[in-house]
């Protein structure tokens, strides 16, 4: 260990840009066992590991599995990594590590952080390839829990409940499970086979999956409460935000999640709405987060003639993962920073021709530490566009039946829960992930799911 003065940080190799634009395959080629050892051995093994304590919402045992894999003990690394995380091979791929573990790594100032994300993904990939599997005891309890939503929060909750021997019925409104992991995150970041494999493991462990089952009249919350000992809500925040500008309802102005979902359906070979086809079109994406990066990179793979990203702050203030921004730049996306959209421009026939924008200035940081944005009058300009995609974050949809069940929600629709257990004002309903905290990361949703699972276990098993 502590080889950081001799060994440099080495990111996993990426496929060539020209090759990767032709398909939706994963961009990164993760480490083989030798590379993963070399990179892990750089770890300082800090007495109070910042990566775990400050960096990771799941408090993963990062230094411990780094030490294990550096000592060639793949099994120990795999078990440690899967102990606290419900799907390390997925989070290793999609977490914005530069803001989390790798940003907290003590080596991040001046040496290059440990490649925690890539190592995390590689460890479980290598272990799966070697035939190792996480251990589940089988369903041993007569109590069952209903999990609504099959996204990161739901999978996490189900995973930990199944590890305690509690059977889980999972209800998903879409026709494939995975939620955001399936339809929100494009295949070039996360291969869908990886998500499917996790569901296979969970189903073997005792998960029953009910697809095409939205909460509502056919599946009222009330009846779930009758049939199950506890209910976990992990339905996410899926309602895309709009900027509230003129002509934003034009049929060629899309919300990011709809665009990504239909593109993914196309990749799967399922039915999809041709409206979301961007082949041969000029595309403008509004927003600067990870979802915006997913949209621009999806559009460019789908064959858009040009893809431009408008963001109202500057590059340094982008909230998403740094590596995804760099990947987008490599793939030919153009960025217009400090631009705020003011109007969608239509021609006389009502066809979309572009978007007007104003230059912005950054002011003092607000209470979150991000700089305030103000528009500068008289700096209007227009970008030509045939398709506009709004990737401005998400609000929570209204969840049917909550009021009747006596679950309190905030003015913004967030389900209010106890911060240590995820329990709502109804003693048997728990919630976590975006529907509880507002749009956030997959890893925080996983942490919520785990916390709720532990509380449910305590409640059901004592």
């Amino acid at each position, binding site marked *: 260990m502590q080889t*950081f*003065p001799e060994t440099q940080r080495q990111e996993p190799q990426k496929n060539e840009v020209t090759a990767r634009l032709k398909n939706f395959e994963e961009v990164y080629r993760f480490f083989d066992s030798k590379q993963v050892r070399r990179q892990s051995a750089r770890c*300082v093994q*800090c007495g109070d590991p910042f990566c775990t304590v400050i960096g990771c919402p799941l408090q993963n045992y990062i230094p411990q599995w780094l030490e294990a894999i550096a000592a060639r003990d793949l099994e120990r690394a795999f078990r440690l990594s899967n102990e606290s995380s419900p799907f390390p091979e997925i989070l290793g791929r999609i977490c914005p590590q530069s803001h989390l573990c790798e940003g907290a790594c*003590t*080596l991040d100032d001046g040496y290059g952080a440990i490649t925690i994300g890539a190592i995390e993904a590689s460890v479980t990939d290598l272990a799966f390839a070697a035939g190792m599997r996480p251990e589940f005891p089988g369903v041993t309890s007569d109590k069952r829990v209903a999990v609504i939503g099959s996204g990161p929060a739901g999978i996490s909750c189900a995973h930990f409940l199944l590890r305690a021997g509690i059977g889980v019925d999972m209800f998903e409104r879409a026709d494939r499970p995975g939620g955001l992991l399936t339809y929100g995150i494009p295949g070039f970041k996360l291969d869908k086979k990886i998500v499917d494999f996790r569901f296979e493991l969970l189903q073997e462990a005792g998960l029953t999956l009910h697809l095409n089952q939205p909460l509502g009249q056919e599946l009222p919350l009330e009846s779930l409460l009758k049939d199950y000992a506890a209910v976990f809500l992990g339905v996410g925040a899926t309602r895309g935000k709009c900027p509230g500008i003129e002509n934003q309802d034009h049929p060629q102005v899309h919300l990011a999640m709809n665009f990504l979902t239909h593109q993914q359906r196309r990749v799967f070979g399922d039915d999809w709405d041709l409206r979301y086809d961007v082949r041969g079109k000029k595309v403008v994406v509004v927003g600067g987060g990870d979802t915006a990066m997913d949209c621009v990179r999806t559009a460019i793979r789908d064959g858009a003639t040009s893809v431009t990203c408008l963001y109202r702050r500057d590059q340094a203030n982008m909230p998403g993962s740094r590596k995804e921004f760099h990947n987008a730049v490599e793939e030919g996306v153009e960025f217009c920073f400090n631009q705020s959209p003011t109007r969608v421009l239509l021609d006389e026939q009502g066809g979309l021709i572009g978007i007007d924008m104003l230059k912005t200035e950054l002011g003092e940081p607000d209470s979150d530490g991000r700089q305030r944005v103000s528009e500068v009058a008289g700096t209007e300009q227009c970008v030509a566009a045939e398709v506009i995609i709004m990737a401005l974050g998400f609000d929570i949809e209204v969840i049917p039946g909550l009021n009747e069940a006596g679950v309190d929600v905030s003015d913004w629709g967030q389900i209010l829960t106890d911060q240590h257990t995820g329990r709502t004002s109804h003693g048997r309903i728990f919630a976590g992930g975006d529907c509880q905290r507002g749009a956030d990361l997959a890893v925080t949703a996983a942490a919520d799911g785990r916390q709720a699972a532990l509380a449910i276990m305590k409640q059901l098993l004592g």
Partner: protein
Amino acid sequence: MTPGYLRSAEEIQIKLAQGAKPGEGGQLPGEKVTSLIATLRFTIPGVTLISPPPHHDIYSIEDLAQLIFDLKQVNPEAIISVKLVSSEGVGTIAAGVAKAYADKIVISGGDGGTGAAPFSSIKYAGNPWEFGLAEAHNSLKANRLRELVTLQTDGGLKTGRDVVKAALLGAEYFGFGTPLLVILGCKLLRVCHLNRCTVGIATQDDTLRGHYIGTVEKVVAYLRNVAEDVREILAELGFSSLQEIIGRSDLLQLIDNPRVKKFDFSQVLLRVDGVDTRQRENPPFDDNVFEKEVLEEVLPVIKNPQKEIVVERDILNTNRSFGTLISGQIARYYGDEGLPKDAVTIKLKGVAGQSLGAFLSHGMSLLLTGVANDYTGKGMHAGRIIITPAIYQEGASAVGNTCLYGATGGKLFVAGTAGERFAVRNSGALAVVEGTGDHACEYMTGGTVVVLGDTGINFGAGMTGGVAFVYDRSKNFIDRLNQELVAARRIDVDEDNEGKLYLKKILASYHNRTRSTKARRILDNFREELAYFWMVTPKDMQAPLNPKEGD
């Protein structure tokens, strides 16, 4: 310690132990002892160092008084402080230390602690400074000693509140450790022992040291903030200076908490009548007039190093640390380089007191006809001490215990035997004696020791450098050698010309100076007598024999 180093100090601390790791001390692992560090610490690269090392010259409060006296001679301007650990009974020790003429007493608590300590010590050892400080302060007051010494405390002090609390319990000075490291960039990674500190503090690696971001200004800014904090608390209490609240333990109150009620704090909060701060100097009872007079005589030579001088004196065993005051004066002007060889020769007759020639400087020769006491040549750096008893008798004792302890150079020839712990931690001196007690050459890291007679047990324990020759006529030496790190071999073999020539040269020089009949006899029959000699060297390290020695 060298005379130049001691003389350059404003304050010299005798660290008996540290609050965070009592009984163990910090460790500098061998991997971090580079050749630069080894040079600075007079040791061998790659050998683990502990700090503080056991004080082989302090076995009682009288020994401590003697060390304080030695230090006050070599550097009369320096404040001598003694660091003690907060514990039950520290008040008694503090009173003893004050009576031993220390200027300052440090009560060290267990809450601090660096990465240099073993984890078990950081976690489980040490007491809070509050208990020890209160006990020491009250004990000193009760014995009317408080006015003679200043009190300092340390052990996890971080804020103005800590400083005010320490002042109320009797501290006048306040030590900061860990927070300053943090200000300088320390992230508490706890890898200090691996030489891999990413912020360039606890490492000797140049690349890593390039990442060091600490500046003096940061430390100043932090301490200024602490002071500002103190000022605000004082203002709240209605005082205008820290001086006004020192020892005002009556201003402290127990908080209302059920857990507090389980303990009896009366001893901590007790306020004894008397002054709460240092009022006057604490000079040793012995003002060393004897050497001050000699110094007056020698001063022209120190001022004009071209000159040479020979002084003759009768000496008594009440004349302690002779040669140290003069050495300190030499070091004041010339540092460790000292004066030219033979600049100052002092011929003494009689029985010398303790610490004859302690911290001796270059250019000094002490020629004693008679015998000397404990600590002869303690910390000697250069020059020579020649001791020839008035009536020579083979096997008779001529110097006491712990001679040559921590010596860094110079020559000690004694025509008689030495006591226990001879040449412990010697790192450069050449010595010839005619016998030793137990533990000779323990922890030796350099230099040469020749013993022309029997030794005690545990010879060469922990010895990592230097060389020793032992004349083993009675053939029992091997049983007395601690063979953990060293090995003894014969030098009468053909392959070893270096060893035997070196020894012969030393013996010739020794005989020349002392006229020892035993040395004469060995030299006269050198071929046969050589068969009785052992040469002891560390197993791992090849100790270089210094061909310049011997004349």
